Every structure is written in C-alpha cells, then in structure tokens.
C-alpha cells in the first residue's frame, strides 16, 4: 500500500497544475454546498429553539364546575405528550393581559365583567413539539367536553416548518447537484491524467500489471484530491464564518441563539465524504478507461 501511496503522490506532483485546478474546483463546490448546509443547520436550530417555547392554550367552555375542571385537568395530564397542564383562571388571564397592555391597561378598567375564559396552559414533551404532533394533540384535546378552543400558533408553526422544509428540500437538491458536480470534476481530471498517460498504462498492462496495480494509485489520487479540496473548501468557509461573526457578532447572536459552525466530527465527516467522492470520480473514469 505504501508503494501505491508513493506512486499516487508522485502522480500528483507530476500533474501539479491539473491537481491544483481540481482541488480548487472541488473546494468551491464543497464551500457552496457546505454554506447551504450551515444555513440549514442554523435554521433548524432556530426552529428547535422556537419549538422549545411552544405552549398550547386550552380554553374552557363558560361556567365549568370545579369538579369538571379538575376532571379536565386529570384528562389533560393523562394524554401522552403533555408534560404539564397549568390552570389559568379568568382573573389570572386578565392580569396577564393587563401586564401585556402596559400603558393601555386603563381600557380594561371599564369592563363590566371579565370576558376572558378559564384556560389550561399546556407544556409539551420535547418530542411532541413538531407541527404534526401538535395538530394531533390539539384535535384530541379539542374533543374533550369542557374544551371550547385550542390554540398553539398553528399558522406560524405551519408556515415556518414549511419554509424550513422547502429550504431543506432545496438543500438536498443543491447537495446532490454539487455531489454530482464534484464526482464529474474529479472524474474528468483523472480522465485527463489517464489520457496523458495512456501509453504508460498500456505498457504497464503489457508487462503484466494487474488492474489493481494500475487502479489503486488513481483511487488514492482521487481521494487525496477530494480530501484536499474539501479541507480547502471547509477552511475557507470557516474563515468566512469567523470574519462575519467578528464583524457582525453582536446583532447576529442573541441570548437564545448563536450562529454556529459545524462541529469537528461533522467537519471530519464532510472531509471523509469528499474523499469518497474523489474515489468515486476515479472509479467512474477508470471503469470507462480500463474496459
């Protein structure tokens, strides 16, 4: 294997210009694809953060007896996905509203009676905060006899989830496109090298070299090009990220949310992926060339 590796390195050295072009092109592809991925990771983070704060408001029908209310609370707490059900009386609801209205709270002083219904504020278990689970839970709770209405900001969650899903879909498409582009680039570089060295390869075959003997250095070459290109692409993206966070750090970061770069393990995974893509490019070229 060491000999194959040394031969691959020699080939790279002998074809410096071609290798540099490939590495740079792979780096650009990876940088663009990784930038999209970074956006999705952070957008997913925002959604996750937002979902953590989701509460469901369950409004009760008017004049519910104390026993019925206790019974409703017990029923709510027994529903799978409900972490906590907290009772909010009409008075407490009005106080909350007063707090939210701040300087206009005088408007509430003229009310003859408290128009706000009694309610339960429901905190949900972490795994039940997605749009589908929320809808399912809301329908189930709405069917309870004492429940008049259920609200959880369904419209906003639906829209935001749809946007993130749309971007994710676009991300997969772009990722796929760049994956194919990278394979194509590496395949073409290797093809050019193969074409330039077709006579040498023919001689190798004539002297009894196995396909493995010919292929392995090219596979290694593809993997090295893919790996180097990915490292360069990710490195450039990291520099861009550091520059942006330094320049616009404060407005971009909040107490709840900070824009993050990929974790080290993910970076290692991406580099490994780049190497696999490089290998695939070599494989495609050699498959056609060594028929």
């Amino acid at each position: 294997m060491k000999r194959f590796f040394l031969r691959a390195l020699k080939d790279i050295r002998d074809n410096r210009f071609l290798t540099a072009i490939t590495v740079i092109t792979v780096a650009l592809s990876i940088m663009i694809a990784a930038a999209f991925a970074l956006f999705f990771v952070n957008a997913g983070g925002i959604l996750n953060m937002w979902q953590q704060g989701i509460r469901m408001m369950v409004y009760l029908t008017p004049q519910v007896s104390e026993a019925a209310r206790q019974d409703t609370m017990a029923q709510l707490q027994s529903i799978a996905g409900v972490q906590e059900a907290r009772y909010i009386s009409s008075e407490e609801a009005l106080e909350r509203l007063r707090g939210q209205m701040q300087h206009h709270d005088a408007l509430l002083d003229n009310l003859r009676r408290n128009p706000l219904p009694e309610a339960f504020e429901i905190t949900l278990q972490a795994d039940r905060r997605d749009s589908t689970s929320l809808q399912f839970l809301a329908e189930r709770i709405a069917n309870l006899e004492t429940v008049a209405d259920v609200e959880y900001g369904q419209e906003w969650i639906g829209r935001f989830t749809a946007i993130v899903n749309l971007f994710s879909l676009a991300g997969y498409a772009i990722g796929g496109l760049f994956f194919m582009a990278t394979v194509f680039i590496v395949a073409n570089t290797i093809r050019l090298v193969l074409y330039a060295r077709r006579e040498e390869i023919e001689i190798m075959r004539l002297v009894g070299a196995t396909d493995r003997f010919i292929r392995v250095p090219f596979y290694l070459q593809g993997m090295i090009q893919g790996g180097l290109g990915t490292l360069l692409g990710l490195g450039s993206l990291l520099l861009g990220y550091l520059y942006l966070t330094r320049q616009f750090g404060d407005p971009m970061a909040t107490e709840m949310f900070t824009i993050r770069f990929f974790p080290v393990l993910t970076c290692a995974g991406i580099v490994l992926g780049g190497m696999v893509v490089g290998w695939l490019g070599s494989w495609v070229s050699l498959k056609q060339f060594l028929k």
Partner: protein
Amino acid sequence: MTDTRDEAIIRLFHVHKRYGAKAALQDVTLEIAKNELLFVTGRSGAGKTTLLRLLYLGEAVSEGQILVDGMNLSRIPRARVPTLRRKFGIIFQDYKLIPTKTVYENVALVLEAAGRKPSVIPKKVRSVLRIVGMEDRMNAFPPSLSGGEQQRVAVARAAAGDPKIILADEPTGSLDEEAAGLIMSYLDTFHTRGATIIVATHDKELLKRADTRVVQLRDGRLLPPAPV
C-alpha cells in the same frame, strides 16, 4: 502447415486472425519448444506482429486455439491475463519505454507489477542493466538515450522478470549493424539462461547469422519449412 517439436511451450492450432474482411493470419499451426530460439520472418504486413500479439493476448484469435505454457488463451479469464503476460518479456521495435520514468524505473516497473518484494527489486534491476551495459545510465530518462541504448533498456526490461518467453518484434529494425549485433548477443545470453526467444524480423543480415529455426509468413500463411 505444421511444424512439431517436443516439449512445446507454445502451440498454435489452425489459428486465424481477421480484421473485418482482411485476413492477417490464416490457418497457422505451429509449435515452439521450450528454450528454443525461433525467428519469424516475412515481409511487412505478412502477419509477424499479429502472431506475436496473439501470444500475449494483445489481441484475441478469430478462430483456432493457442496454448502457452499450458494456458489455453481462448478460455483464460480477464483476471488471469496479467499472469499470462508475466510469462513473457516483450521487446518492441519502438521500444515502448515510459519517457517520464528513468531507466531504472522502467525496468523496475515489471517487477513491481509482478508484486516482487521491494527489497529484491534494486538488485535485480541492476543485474539486468549490467548485462545490457546500461547500469551506469540507470538514472537517465529514455529521451536522452540513443536508439540502441533505448533498445538495450527494453531488452533489460523484457528480461527483468525472468520470463519463460521473450518476444522481440523487429528488435533491430531501427538500429545500425553494431547495435543490432549487441541486441542479438543479449538475447543469446537470456536464451542461454533458459528463456524461449521468438524474434520477428525481416532483417536479412540477422537471419543470415541465425543458426536456429526460421519460420516464414507470407500473406498471413506459414510457409512450409525449406528443405535441408
């Protein structure tokens, strides 16, 4: 046309090779004994090169069968072609040296391709380069060598893997008389060491000096041996 020898290392049975409508070889039956030095002669286009190419599966026969050291070339799977080719050392008229590799690297390639241990390769390469008198040029690149020197490297490369058979396709075709004599003397050396040598040539001077069997091809057919 048949020529039979004992202990044949190569056998051709009614071999035909066609390129479209053109017949390059027609009904060639030939046996070549172990450690024989055989000359194949004939005009340009007679089928000499085609005959050699069929032996190392540079091309497949159109009809007929070839056996090389017990291997039936019609039935050999693709994965075993390298094994077959390692039985041969091949010398081409145009040398076919890799211009970007040094003399040493060109010769070592055969041994690397055969999976020889890295520790034995330098000694072996030096040994064959010494035989052809090119040891002192082993760091040179082929384009910097004369035709005769390049052909000597090609002979060294052909002999490096200790092949059972050395095929030489017009090995002296582009060399002067002195250089041609040297190449033949090196081939003689490897013949003496046990290799079967097949030389395809139309070099009359070379044939005059040959005191071994000569077979002649004409328009792809093997001519009957001349009466003794």
